[in-house]
């Protein structure tokens, strides 16, 4: 796989090099020049993905607890809440948060700024929350119901059963889909560029604008693609391994 991605990248560089006019710096030199800047942008993407994953998971678990509630008046609203955020496009949710939240909050202790990258994080955390809650529910439901009954007969109350018996067993099953979701989220952080957050894709566009050479377009976008690939592919491989390990042989 690594071989193929290097091949792909080398091909686009060679192609661009062939089109470079004489007297201009080479494609690889230009790439090397901008790499530190782009790498900062990429780290920013990773930071956004980590923050929104944390935020989304936290709220997702809470929503998931509502989802498995046996009271209809709790479960139904939670269900529709989850469906709305799960079925709306991520980009639309980002627009939602971007345009409909203020850029700063006034509190008695002074104004708290609310920069656009935090908005992007919140915007991405919303669909993550909905998906995590479904993963949580799926994990809990996949356990045999006898576990609940056994816990009840041992005198555990509802929350104790959930915390001490159900969740520790279900966490194993939730892990692979959760990691999948993280990989999807990491890729979705590039959506923030549409809304003007200075992450790697925005920077790439700016760099390309500054260089103003059309033959650079392919190697630069290819370069970003390869980076994301190198970050996400190991996660995908590891997820697959976990899935295989936890799967019940059928």
């Amino acid at each position, binding site marked *: 796989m690594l071989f*193929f991605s290097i091949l792909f990248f080398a091909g686009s560089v060679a192609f661009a090099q062939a089109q470079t006019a004489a007297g201009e710096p080479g494609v690889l030199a230009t790439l090397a020049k901008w790499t530190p800047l782009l790498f900062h942008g990429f780290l920013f993407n990773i930071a956004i993905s980590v923050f929104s994953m944390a935020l989304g998971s936290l709220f997702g678990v809470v929503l998931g607890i509502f989802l498995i509630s046996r009271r209809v008046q709790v479960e139904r609203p939670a269900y529709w809440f989850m469906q709305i955020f799960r079925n*709306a496009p991520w980009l639309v949710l980002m627009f939602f948060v971007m345009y409909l939240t203020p850029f700063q909050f006034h509190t008695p202790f002074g104004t708290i700024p609310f920069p656009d990258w935090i908005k992007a994080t919140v915007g991405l955390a919303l669909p993550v929350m909905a998906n995590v809650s479904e993963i949580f529910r799926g994990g809990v439901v996949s356990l045999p119901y006898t576990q609940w009954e056994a816990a009840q007969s041992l005198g555990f109350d509802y929350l104790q059963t959930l915390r001490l018996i159900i969740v520790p067993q279900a966490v194993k099953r939730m892990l692979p889909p959760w990691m999948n979701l993280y990989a999807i989220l990491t*890729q979705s952080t590039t959506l923030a560029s549409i809304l003007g957050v200075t992450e790697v894709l925005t920077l790439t566009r700016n760099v390309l604008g500054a260089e103003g050479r059309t033959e650079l377009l*392919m190697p630069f976008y290819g370069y970003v693609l390869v980076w994301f690939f190198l970050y996400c592919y190991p996660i995908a491989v590891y997820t697959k391994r976990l899935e295989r390990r936890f799967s019940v042989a059928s």
Partner: protein
Amino acid sequence: MLHGFEMTVWLSIVTIAASTLIGVIGVWLLGTRWRIVRQIITAYVQFFRNTPPLVQLYFFFFALSPLLSTHSADGLRHPLLNNVFWASLSLSLFAGAFNVEIFRSGIEAIPRTTLEAAESLGFSRLQSFVRIMFPLAFRIGLPAFTNNIVNLVKTTSLAYAIAVPELLYASSQIWSDELNVPEMMVFILIAYIILVAIVVWAMELIEKRLRIPGYGL
């Protein structure tokens, strides 16, 4: 607004059809004897699955599109293919990669003996794929396939980034004219949810139609 909605529907239909086709052909090619073909398909699937669709879209539109352009007499570049084409192509390739993966896992779930039985009955490889393996794999992979299609319908909103006049783009034009962001936002959400509901409903219908008696719940 209505045009935007039409464009979204059109994009969805085209990309669903194309990505399903890619999935079928891809999984067929995964079964060939030639190792290099299998490796190329695997590379394609892994690459498109593990890179952001937005960057793929930019790559196609900004990097590949200028290569396929003609110069008019005044020296301006005229792309041969418009942004709608590039959006459909890139989204189809993105979703197609997932479809290959879904159908492959479906085929792997079929017991090997089925294929052996088909062979012993004198089916050729193509025949057993078309008549036996794929119909079974499709049924097994149907829930995951539905998921992927729903995801694809939502991903069409990315075409906004290259100014394809779909739902989100049309709405953003309207709210920059009318300054009615909250109303438009709610409208977009409802529109997408209706669209997704239709897709899910249609897929459930197909699922019921294709049910194998005696299997599942």
